[in-house]
């Protein structure tokens, strides 16, 4: 199968590669760029484990082809924290609130919540639950996750999301 070239920015770094048109953005990130923090829980757009930011929008990378990200700016879980390895406000809140157990769903939640709080720094409880309903977690029963979003919303209001 013919390969096409793509150029994009991933976590602030310019990347260029050739890729089969059928390769999903998720597989491209995981296999070609070795950014394995983006996880696959269903590969059909329901679980949200593969969520990344594409030009700032939370996107399911299993539903998008790598070639569609040509020219885009992509942020994965590896690019969410501060460059020195410190945790973002959302990541710290997940740690403080026991918002993760096995951690497999976690990158997708952290990325989704980061985008959500950036756009909705004052969420109500039902809004939080609604926003989280696009991501599946089988371990936590969502208790710690909801608490983490509430805690991180405080940081969002103070403009300290990162």
């Amino acid at each position, binding site marked *: 199968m013919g390969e096409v070239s793509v150029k994009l920015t991933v976590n602030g770094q310019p990347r260029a590669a050739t890729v089969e048109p059928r390769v999903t953005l998720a597989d491209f990130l995981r296999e070609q760029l070795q950014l394995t923090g983006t996880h696959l829980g269903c590969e059909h757009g329901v679980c949200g484990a593969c969520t990344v930011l594409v030009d700032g929008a939370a996107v399911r990378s299993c539903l998008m082809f790598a070639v569609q990200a040509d020219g885009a700016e992509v942020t994965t879980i590896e690019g*969410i924290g501060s460059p020195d*390895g410190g*945790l973002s406000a959302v990541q710290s809140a997940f*740690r403080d609130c026991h918002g993760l*157990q096995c951690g497999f769903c976690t990158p997708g939640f952290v990325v989704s919540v980061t985008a959500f709080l950036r756009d909705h720094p004052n969420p109500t409880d039902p809004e939080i639950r609604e926003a989280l309903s696009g991501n599946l977690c089988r*371990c936590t029963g969502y208790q710690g996750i909801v608490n983490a979003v509430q805690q991180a919303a405080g940081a969002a209001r103070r403009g300290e999301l990162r």
Partner: protein
Amino acid sequence: MTERAADGGARYAGARVHRVEDDRLLTGRGTFVDDVSLPGMLHACFVRSPIARAAIQRIDTSAALALPGVRFVFTAADLNPGVREQWHTTIGKEMPETPRPPLAEGEVRFVGDPVALVVAESRYLAEDAAELVEVDYEPLPAVVDYTEAEHAKALVHESHGSNVIAQLTTVPASAFDEVFASAAHVASETIYQQAYAPVPIEGRGLVVDYSSVTGDLTIHASTQTPHEVRLFCSRLLGMPEERVRVVTRDTGGGFGQKVMVQRDEMCLMLAGPVVGAPLKWVEDRRENLLAAGKSRQEHAAVKMAFDADGAIQAAYIDFVQDCGAYPTPWPLFPAAAVGTFFPGPYRVPRGGFAVKTLYTNTVGRAPYRGPWQFESLAREVLLDIAARQMHVDPAELRRRNLLRRDELPYKNPNGMNYDNISPLETFEQALAMLDYAKFRAEQAEARSAGRYLGVGLANYVEASTPGYGVYGTEPATIRIAPTGRITVYVAGGSSGNSIETTVVQLTADALGAKIEDVDTVQGDTAVTGFGAGTAGSRSGSMTAGAVRETAAVLRERILAIAAHELGVAIEDIELADSRASVRAKPAVGVSFKDLAALADAPAGLEASARYTANSPSIWVNATHVCTCEVDVATGRVQLLRYIVSEDCGPMINPNVVEGQIAGGTVQGIGGVLFEHLAYDDDGNPVATTFMDYLLPTAAEVPAIEFGHIETPSPGPGGYKGVGEGGAIGAPPAVVNAVADALSPFGVKITRLPLGPSQIVALLDR
């Protein structure tokens, strides 16, 4: 976030300390099996049966093999002869087992049955090639409905001679005819639970890496039991066990599904050494829902006799379970647990059970968190039905029958000897947290306004931490390096249950170390001793025992060296903050770092020991209380409050305990309201994506409120197992809440699931 104990040393057990797992998992730096990438690695994909039962006439692999990049296509004839022995260490060689050919041989027995294994240079190519493998099937009559399996003409396993796998009756139901005939009240129902499954968000997977030069086989596995995978594999291939190493870093949830070695995984173990390169298989969601195993799917005729005051006189359960085509393990003993636990935490003077397990042409039964939880579902649903019949409040009926502390130890009629439990306390605590009387008043008010609220109660007692056989032992090694870093090595098998954190907490406490000085290594069989992994709610208690035994040896050595170094008696030394100091003169002391250097530089200080369990099981009890509102027009159930009062003894880390309870509870809620691993009449699975298999999301789940009662167990630290209880207590609490809400309509609920369509149908009846 840690508490200070009176002696001045840090005390971490009992504190909500941050997890040591979190930094890597939050930043995308975990290592799940699909993240393992080795040079030259090949990728595997299964060809699976599209038919519930058929004879395999012919398999043509030529088109698949002709595809560039495809290296091998294996069929049963290639792989199956490689099997030497196949049995699990935890189950034993003597236990009967369903014949489990790695690839289907001659006959396929369920939709999803692995027929061929394609190996190619990429997962994409392997999937392409799998579609090119031509298999001619001759369909055969399939046994789909387990309630008809016993008398079906078709046999799932011809060699077994019957679709009844095994059955067991302790006492026939007729033995209690007199009690039931003379009882003031009798409640008797047949209760059904549908198939649902663990569904970890990460599927199963392996990377098998064989070196023909050294003969070493390394397996990276998504598993709850790395040491079992290692020993199973060594026997399967007839390889010396020291040649096989299993490495598990992060496992994305298991809930029982990743305890045993399944047929798909055997195929990878057999193919790995043949393909000349590392070989990866990671199942996708469809495979997980098709082939990783189902759970639940069972029913029972249950009955209870009561005297005029509502005291239980006898309880009987006649239980029937669907085990699919390839149950793992042999299902009789897990099924018998449904019988033995059926009396629950109640005063039940007489009782017995019968259990029957059946083959069908559906995916095989696999363990799932609280594999026997049907006992609680059946008992608690029956108690509510009985209360309604007797016009007694369901809380009052339970209160009259719950075991009191002064009656312990108490032997139930099926031989279970309960002790160190507090069913009446958790019950009263949970009711108080709800304010039961107030809820009843709100319910009455709502009803008069045409709104239907309900409350559901459920009590259970479960046996955690099996103390027999290989389950009853757990090792640890603790090393203090000359750098001062302390590393604790345990068998591992965490799949989200935080045993890295809890083991670090316990080790820091046991040695008097600062928690930030302690690391842990788990899941690598090359550097840890055999332990049976995460199963049976055993990790907490067993690793606590292992750390206690090992730390005791190490403490003695630290004390001896420190006493010598400081010129005082051993009794005068105290260990705290990673330092040995003189009790009377705390400023005089020596750090663990310096002691390790003194001891045996550069080896440091090291000890290994093994804990052996002191009781056959550790009992845990809890009460679940759930309230809901049912929209009688749409059949939609909205959960309002959810309360769990649990007695798991002292908590090593309350965050971890509550996290386990919450996770299990939401799985139980899902099992009642949303999840159904359904098949059509021809044996085709109809829920093979997350569009059809509905998991609960944050939007459907209420906040869970926790109450804790603390009755120490006889085990190390008084700890108990808490991994499974949520999934046991939740289903009956939710069912009872819905039934209570619908009681004005005279609706009786005896069948799950309770989706909107089922509820509307119940109301239409």
